[in-house]
């Protein structure tokens, strides 16, 4: 009797579970990552009404500071005072984390990099962005509008926020002479065996590809996100070699801060904000390697089923307003999207340093984007490796 009850309970459960699931429905299977995919129909907001009193923000670390990390760094509180939207901020460490967190439906607005934005659009997790509802959109640098990573078929999916490059950070007391290229973490990494770090995400494979683009020209890599099998294998082999010298990988920014402070890591890829948080406790410097770098161009996107859509729009508009955009850009160490922000920075030469108005420079950074089977560099004679392959390879590299 007892046994059969359990059996019944279990089979009932199994049936219920088969009926409900993590995905929103059995919509027709589109080819994953096909170029010119049709985003699912998601209505665009027509007006922005009064704030709902709260907003759930999913952001890169440093994008929504409320003074809890540093009392002088606070642009969330003025937003709350102005709009009455109480901000609840959650930081994420990788784009994959952002995509999976957006799937929970708990967030109203997200700062998505190029390797997350299109995945969110294709997954129907974010809504088309009504640029007329954002007063600051007009001041956004033209070279950030209607780009492949933030729009589909001419429809913007968010508010451009800022852009920048991944940098090489090193401990000036230990790493001598000062490194100028990524070889410090690849071919010369053995000099600092066990004290090298790398970003813990499959997208880091692009950093190796970028290095090979310059050092092994015969591979013919044109775009570090468009790798055919042979190019991909070379990048993976390089990373497996690097793995011998890596002490720790980081995806949580606080982990890299603590590793550099303690000296257990002395050289590796970083964001400027991490260097800013570290430099008081350890002698670190960052360098933009001469051969270029991977980087990000971020967009604030509004969730398709946002619980607080008005506050989400108010936030996306506020954070790209000249004052707030300038504060974020200076704190995080990136070029602000709003060109008027350049007049609001405390360091007047800030925007020149980050080439914020320089479209040609912006074009030189290899922005994170999601690798797909169709080569992003336009080659049609070969198939490129997609993100699934990158993901798999990344775990193998770590071993």
């Amino acid at each position: 009797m007892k046994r059969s009850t359990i059996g019944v309970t279990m089979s009932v459960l199994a049936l219920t579970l088969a009926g409900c699931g993590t995905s929103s429905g059995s919509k027709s299977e589109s080819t994953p990552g096909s170029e010119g995919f049709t985003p699912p129909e998601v209505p665009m907001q027509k007006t922005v009404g009064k704030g709902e009193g709260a907003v759930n923000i999913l952001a890169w670390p440093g994008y929504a500071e409320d003074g809890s990390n540093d009392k002088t760094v606070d642009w969330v509180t003025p937003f709350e005072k102005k709009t009455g939207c109480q901000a609840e901020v959650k930081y994420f460490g990788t784009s994959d984390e952002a995509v999976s967190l957006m799937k929970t439906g708990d967030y109203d607005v997200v700062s998505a990099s190029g390797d997350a934005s299109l995945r969110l659009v294709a997954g129907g997790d974010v809504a088309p962005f009504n640029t007329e509802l954002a007063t600051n959109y007009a001041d956004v640098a033209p070279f950030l509008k209607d780009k492949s990573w933030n729009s589909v078929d001419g429809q913007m999916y968010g508010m451009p926020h800022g852009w920048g490059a991944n940098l090489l950070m090193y401990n000036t007391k230990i790493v001598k002479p000062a490194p100028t290229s990524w070889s410090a973490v690849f071919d010369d990494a053995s000099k600092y065996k066990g004290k090298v770090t790398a970003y813990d995400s499959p997208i880091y494979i692009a950093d190796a590809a970028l290095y090979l683009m310059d050092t092994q020209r015969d591979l013919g890599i044109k775009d570090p996100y468009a790798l055919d099998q042979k190019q991909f294998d070379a990048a993976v082999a390089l990373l497996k070699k690097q793995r011998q010298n890596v002490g720790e990988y980081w995806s949580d920014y606080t982990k890299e801060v603590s590793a550099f402070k303690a000296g257990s890591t002395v050289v590796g890829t970083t964001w400027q904000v991490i260097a800013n948080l570290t430099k008081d406790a350890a002698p670190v410097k960052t360098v933009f390697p001469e051969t270029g770098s991977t980087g990000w161009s971020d967009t604030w996107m509004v969730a398709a089923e946002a619980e607080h859509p008005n506050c989400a729009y108010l936030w996306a508009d506020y954070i790209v307003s000249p004052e707030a955009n300038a504060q974020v850009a200076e704190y995080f160490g990136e070029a602000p999207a709003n060109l008027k922000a350049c007049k609001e920075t405390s360091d007047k030469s800030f925007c020149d340093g980050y080439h914020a108005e320089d479209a040609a420079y912006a074009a030189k950074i290899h922005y994170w984007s999601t690798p797909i089977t169709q080569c992003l560099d336009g080659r049609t004679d070969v198939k490129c490796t997609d993100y699934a392959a990158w993901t798999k390879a990344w775990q193998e590299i770590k071993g």
Partner: protein
Amino acid sequence: MLGAPLVWLGVVYVGSLAALLVTSLWVQDSFTSEVFRTWTLANFRELLSEPLYRTVLLRTLLIAVLVTLVDLALALPIAFFMAKVARPRTARLLVVSCLMPLWASYLVKAYAWRLLVIDNGVLESTFGASPGFGITAVVLTLSYLWLPYMILPIYSGLDRLPDSLLEASEDCGARPWRTFASVVWPSILPSVVAGSIFTFSLTLGDYITIKIVGGASQMLGSLVYDQQSLNLPLAAAIATFSVAVMGIYLLLVRRTGALDQL
């Protein structure tokens, strides 16, 4: 009367396990992260065919065995002292101090170990040497974290063992070692097994310690953690892996009959 608890057990416990198993049979679109409910064994095929997962599974098992052995070696003398040597008052104090670390957050303790084993950290400045980040540090940290779970069952096992048995053994001329091997060990074996289930299963599922003190290496738990945002069904399949390992372990334990005496 049985109904309500049974439903509770079914929904909360068996239900979540069933959800895990069911999810592991689905596939995820790597581009949109959307999970498709098409039934396939592909995830399990990948687990078996990729050498990576075998390596990580073996590494995790090795760590779990080492942690269990270290904890056993530490817990036996402590529990014996608490149960048979110390006065009741001291014994109670010792039990409380064994429980004390459980009141502190797991993360705090793991980060404390990070500061101990880090280069130029406490261990190095005190003893001149430190294992550094890696498997050794993981074994040490996990042994520390799970030690109370080993001490307490052994203590209660020893507590139930009548002193007269030890005296009888001594009267019959057995030396301490013989008494331990023939009298103490057989009677506390169920407690040891209970403790080892804790240390073994907790290690098998741990994903935080390896991230904090493990350097660049991976365990089953951290694979699941990393995969849950990349490929949820595969993460579920890997998790099923450790459930299976634990199931086998429990079956083996049951065969020894140790569970019947608990």
